[in-house]
């Protein structure tokens, strides 16, 4: 209990500081995303009204969307909406952007979760194996495999998996998504191939980081002492060394959450999955400004949140209280 209280005492100020820092950060993000209206070339009102629209129809669209108001008014209206959880209405689908994001979020969360579980299931054992056998053939196999994993674009891997496992072997669906309400296995089998395609880079990165970190920790005095005291090597690795070796890996996992979210744009397109990545791609292609702005604000919020969770975890695990 005493340790937990100390950890809590360490972490609370950290959380407070980070939450305070969020205010200027989100302010900058808000201003930057709002500026998209002016930075993206072309007239949004004309784009929405369509090529065949008359000048009167374009003017009507501009007035309807408030695009004829001064920039500062539009900005305050945008911020006011954000503070009330209103991300605006999609130009393309006449639907609140927040509703579209919330509808698609479970799909992307599912995909990201499956990818992360795959990354951890592959990355941690591979990293431990390579770290324990540093310099031996097992290490080389893991190092080469992770290099290949990092170098393979996820759309290439995704297409290969879809063609070979999805179509030629017909073991798993090559496209689409099924919600969990249709059954756990139905849900999972639709996510396995995209999850692997998305998670392989994270798995490789985790394996590389863990291998470096663990081989370093295994050379430290306390590990030698533990071995000298007669503890089994496996116990030393899994009970003592791994806890310290995982510290940098946790940072990597936090960073990978952001990468995975970015990767969904490609993987969801390849597998025909209608999640946030696909939404982002479609919004950009359609020049749907409120949707793009909403996605940027949402993605920044998620990335910042993941970073905060990593810091908190660090704060709890780091006995020296050096989390920043």
């Amino acid at each position: 209990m005493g340790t937990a209280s100390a950890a809590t005492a360490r972490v609370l100020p950290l959380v407070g500081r980070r939450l305070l820092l969020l205010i200027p950060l989100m302010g900058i993000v808000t201003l930057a995303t709002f500026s998209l209206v002016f930075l993206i070339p072309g007239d949004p009102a004309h784009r929405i009204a369509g090529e065949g629209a008359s000048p009167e129809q374009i003017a009507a669209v501009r007035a309807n969307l408030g695009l004829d108001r001064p920039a500062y008014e539009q900005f305050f209206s945008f911020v006011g909406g954000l503070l009330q959880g209103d991300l605006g209405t999609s130009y393309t689908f006449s639907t609140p952007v927040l509703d579209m994001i919330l509808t698609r979020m479970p799909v992307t969360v599912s995909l990201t979760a499956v990818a992360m579980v795959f990354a951890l299931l592959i990355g941690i054992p591979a990293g431990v194996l390579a770290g324990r056998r540093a310099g031996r053939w097992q290490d080389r196999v893991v190092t080469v495999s992770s290099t290949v994993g990092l170098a393979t674009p996820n759309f290439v891997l995704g297409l290969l998996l879809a063609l070979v496992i999805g179509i030629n072997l017909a073991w798993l669906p090559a496209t689409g998504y099924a919600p969990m309400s249709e059954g756990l296995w139905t849900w999972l089998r639709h996510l396995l191939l995209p999850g692997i395609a998305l998670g392989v880079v994270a798995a490789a990165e985790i394996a590389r980081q863990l291998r470096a970190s663990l081989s370093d920790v295994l050379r430290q005095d306390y590990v030698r002492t533990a071995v000298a005291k007669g503890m089994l090597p496996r116990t030393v690795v899994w009970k003592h060394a791994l806890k310290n070796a995982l510290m940098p890996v946790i940072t990597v996992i936090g960073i990978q959450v952001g990468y995975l979210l970015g990767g969904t744009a490609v993987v969801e397109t390849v597998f025909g999955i209608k999640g946030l990545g696909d939404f982002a791609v479609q919004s950009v292609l359609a020049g749907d400004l409120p949707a793009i702005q909403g996605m940027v604000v949402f993605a920044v919020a998620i990335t910042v949140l993941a970073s905060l969770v990593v810091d908190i975890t660090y704060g709890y695990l780091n006995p020296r209280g050096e989390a920043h």
Partner: protein
Amino acid sequence: MKRIPTLAAAACLVLLSACGGGDGGSGGADSGDVDTSATLRYAASGGATSFDPHKTVSSSDFLVLSYAYDRLVHVDSEGQPVPGLAESWEFAEDMSTLTLNLRQGVEFPDGTPFDAKAVKANLDRAMQDDSITAAQLGAVDSVRVVDDATVELALGGPAVHLVLSLSDLGGMMVTPSAFDDPKALALAPDGIGRFTLADSQPGARYQFEATENYWDEDGLKLAGFDLQVITDPQTVLNGVGSDQFDCALVSPAMIDPASQIPGTNVETRTVLTQTVLFPNQTKSEFGDVRVRQALNHAIDREAVLEGAQEGHGEASTGLFPSDYFVPNDAVSDLMAYDPDRAKELLAEAGLEDGFSFTAITLTIPQFVTTAEIIKEQLAAVGIEMTIKALPPADAGVSFLNGDSDAVISGWTGRPDPSMLLTNYFAEDAPQNVSHVEPEGFTDALAAANAEEDTETRGELLDAAQLTVLEHGAVVPITFNSVGTVCSEDVVGYEAPLIGNSEFRGVGITG
């Protein structure tokens, strides 16, 4: 085959080269084993921006809306009019009115009878200034209720093209009470149609259920229609190959790979959608008609067809494909590949050393490849073209704003040829970027729109396109070929000419 009433049959005789089957008011499923409890899963390349046919801003919404809304006039697979919610129609002898005889015994979802009053309410709304359909119905001065089953459209001039215009968004029949809540209507369809929307994820998936007691039994052989939006062409084929979809539209480049999928059939057809180079006559050297004519002679369209469309489709010999009711006889010489003639014309215009211009194109592989081939071909006659690729949502608007000298893009098929001609070449048309009208264009088009005989009208429309191509107002390049890959279980499918399949009368065998 459904019976076509007398007046409609007469209209078919005068307007059509063929008047049977297809996607029109009658079904095509000829198998007795159709499973009427089946749902057809379809992969499409786009969703609907709005379910309000009159107030949407995107004409491409027609595809999704056609499942939920019937129109006054339907079209068959040859693009010709067949009865829809109007059982028949006739023009007054002096072309001052078009009378529509309405289908009886049909109701809107809220129980309101479909009658002349409802049609007038719909057409009046579709003709409002802020409506995308106002231009389609521009020939209509007013709508008059004659009796419950008859409406009379007062016309501002000859308007034979109006019949097919009523097969587009402007002819869709919405429940009049839905007009009071346009926001709700934008999100969910409310009108007479084969399907009602059961669930949707805008831009991603639209799940439709069959309408109970639908008036056209032959046109509805499914219990549901599940449309999923898939943008990546390879993903579409993967979905069909792994039985995630029953049917999918495929681009020219994917027709050959699609035909390799076991257990499926691929139907291909050259459609009205075409690739064009459209110059802004107020920019670069395009103010000189000889320069624009030179462009038409400088392009080897067969090479573009092979290079950019894998040979699928057709090299343009005019503004219409070769099997259409409008011949290209009058204009094909103006588009003959003749680089020497192109050089002569440039020399006559004082441009012996050539000139340069910028062309916007779409960030779609087919268009980028087309633009690159054209760039090479123009270079051979001394014209330097710089390509600027933009996303489809921006390309057209950017061109209309004067950001480039020309655009290489796709013109989608319109139900009636005069709609295409008016949209791009009438002086005040928003899409006529130069706002320059070819000499004699208005009179030629008016003559065509006063003629009800299909063959004669085709010749008159050919004369109208002659004014356009003599003026060098556009450089037609190729017609697209659209393929539809369907599981072998799907029956009754006919590839339509316009490119949008309504799947009317299509079924799935048990």
